[in-house]
């Protein structure tokens, strides 16, 4: 029987100096690497396949299968690229992982690179996290000095170089092909697929791109075995994952547990919604995953459970909003984000997100009408599925889902002649404080 919480990646975060090599080794670190180099690379890929690990960056693609798509080793070098861009609104798991235990990621990078026979790996980390970048740089340096990275690693004859690369502020660079363009020193705009990165990725060479949490899960799988990993979770959603609870919840934070737990269970562990209020809406995996309501508290948080409710598990960024929150305000702010972050490559997304903001602003001011709600849905229809990349699908998700569950609240704005909510009531400060801030 799996416990309700299963700290694996988070297990050492509370240790003194957890980010240093000595502390990591004292907690069992780098034992997986010793184990890995006694195996053929293909055996490691098989272990990852057997574990059932699916990508933790949002889409949930089976990791071992992705690695298996690499064409046979040829002239061109292979690359591993870690997606450490973590910028999906609500998502906040990779950053604390790299801050507390950068070596978990580094060990995962070494083993994964060995498995896919890459001799160079890049960690592409968003630029806006200075201390995380410091700790990654230091961890890589320590690993070089200990002989875990570099030439002839642990006498295996295997060589690897690892570079920590800081981005410069662009959500779209989390999209894997935009990330590759960015890593090549260009504007981060998505590429046409196929060819997929496994065939033509970085420098048109075979490339594997994985999320931080995916790669960080690999050492545990190698050390404890695929059966250990797959003993957690549900039939098609295996293993431990980090759930990030934020918003109007008593004890927000990171809760690592098996896939398939419900939000009701997690909320109980986190002390429930803040006192005196009740849950109004939540996102299962970031703002790009359609929102749910308290009707959905008992659904399993796994890939299938969320798909069944018309949404996606995404990054398990569980943002909770209580009854003081205006859903229209929340949706408008997310839409402004997508407008700002649209890379501009295709018209439906670039122009469409601009129009969405115009209509939502009018509605928020209380100047909208029923026609505007139809216009919103039409616009969404013309954006989703007609754009070049998944950013556009994410952009319409909050609007479509909020109209599904909270249409009345949109109507209330134009019947009321403005927003019926007091923003100060939603803040976490004392009322006087909040009022002093608002209107300033």
């Amino acid at each position, binding site marked *: 029987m799996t416990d309700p919480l*299963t*700290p694996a990646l988070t*297990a050492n*975060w509370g240790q003194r100096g*957890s980010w240093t090599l*000595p502390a990591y*080794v*004292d907690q069992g*670190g*780098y*034992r997986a690497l010793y184990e890995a180099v006694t195996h053929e690379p293909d055996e490691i890929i098989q272990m990852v396949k057997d574990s059932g690990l699916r990508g933790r960056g949002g889409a949930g693609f089976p990791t071992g299968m992705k690695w298996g798509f690499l064409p046979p080793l040829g002239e061109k070098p292979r690359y591993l690229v870690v997606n450490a861009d973590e910028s999906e*609104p*609500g*998502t906040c798991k990779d950053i604390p992982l790299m*801050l507390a235990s950068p070596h978990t990621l580094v060990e995962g990078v070494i083993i994964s690179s060995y498995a896919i026979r890459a001799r160079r790996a890049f960690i592409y980390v968003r*630029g806006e*996290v*200075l*201390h995380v970048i*410091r700790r990654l*740089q*230091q961890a*890589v340096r320590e*690993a070089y*000095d*200990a*002989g875990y*990275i570099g*030439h002839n690693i642990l006498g295996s004859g295997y060589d690897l*170089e690892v570079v920590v*690369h*800081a*981005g*410069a502020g*662009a959500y779209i660079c989390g999209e894997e092909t935009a990330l590759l363009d960015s890593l090549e*020193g*260009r*504007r981060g705009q998505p590429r046409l697929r196929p060819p997929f990165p496994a065939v033509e990725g970085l420098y048109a060479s075979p490339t594997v791109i994985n999320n931080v949490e995916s790669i960080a899960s690999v050492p545990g799988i190698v*050390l404890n075995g695929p059966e*250990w990993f797959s003993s*957690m979770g549900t039939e098609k959603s295996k293993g*431990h994952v980090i759930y990030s609870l*934020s*918003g109007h919840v008593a004890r*927000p*934070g*990171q809760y690592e547990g098996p896939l398939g737990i419900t939000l009701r269970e997690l909320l109980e562990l986190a002390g429930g919604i803040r006192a005196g209020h009740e849950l109004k809406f939540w996102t299962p995996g970031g703002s790009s995953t359609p929102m749910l309501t308290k009707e959905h508290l008992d659904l399993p948080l796994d890939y299938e459970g969320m798909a069944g409710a018309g949404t996606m598990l995404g990054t398990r960024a569980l*943002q909770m*909003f209580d009854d003081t929150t205006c859903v229209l305000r*929340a949706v408008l*702010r*997310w839409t402004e*984000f997508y407008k700002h972050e649209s*890379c501009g490559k295709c018209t439906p997304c670039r122009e469409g997100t601009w129009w969405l903001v115009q209509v939502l602003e009018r509605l928020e001011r209380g100047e909208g009408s029923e026609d505007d709600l139809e216009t919103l849905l039409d616009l969404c229809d013309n954006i989703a599925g007609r754009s070049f990349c998944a950013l556009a699908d994410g952009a319409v998700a909050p609007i479509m889902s909020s109209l599904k569950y909270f249409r009345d609240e949109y109507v209330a704005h134009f019947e009321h002649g403005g927003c019926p909510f007091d923003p100060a009531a939603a*803040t*976490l*400060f004392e009322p006087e*404080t909040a009022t*002093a*801030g608002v209107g300033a």
Partner: protein
Amino acid sequence: MISDKTKGELREITARYPESRSALLPMLHLVQSEEGYVSPEGIEVCAELLDLTAAEVAAVATFYTMYKRRPVGDYHVGVCTNTLCAVMGGDAIFGTLKEHLGVGNDETTEDGKVTLEHVECNAACDYAPVVMVNWEFFDNMTPERARKLVDDLRAGNEVEADRGARICTWRQAERVLAGFPDGRADEGPSAGEASLAGLRLAAERGWSSGAPKPTGDAPPRGDAPNGAASNGATSNGGGGKGQ
């Protein structure tokens, strides 16, 4: 002015990559570290080193929000106003700071100390509302604490991040982002309280992932470097101040 030393370091960055153009983002961070923004001269120098046109470099620089067209103050104060932080109080904090500092979004105080900007989700939502100073975390902020924070920064008092190091200047931070460590990695905690919420609860209740305890000899801990190190492509980790 881009000094000769900086030009040397810009060249050093290109050596980390199989194809030199990959160096452009870190190079632009280094330009900002030297110039306080992406200056026309910085663009020229990068273009020359990478065999690109100035227009090509400028097209990249303008794509990313961290690259600035005007000089930034010593302290870049970013208030998260993405939905979750905004609702929890980020909008109120941003309003307070605008009024308190007498500047608008993306503007710098007259003393050149503080540049205020609202920023997007910074992956710290469990600490909402969040303020970033030179891309270091200030968690669970209130309008009062934010006011005190910028007052301290302007007065030159030493300020420590909640999950990070003592605050350096924006230009020094940009140098780290370019891949030149400043030796502060060992400052600050492993994690904040929210990061440990699930872990604490699991310990209380005796819950675990069921992973076996490690046995046998421990691998090298790195305190006695074994000399197997390569001339790695990454930059030196520096010896932090440790605590």
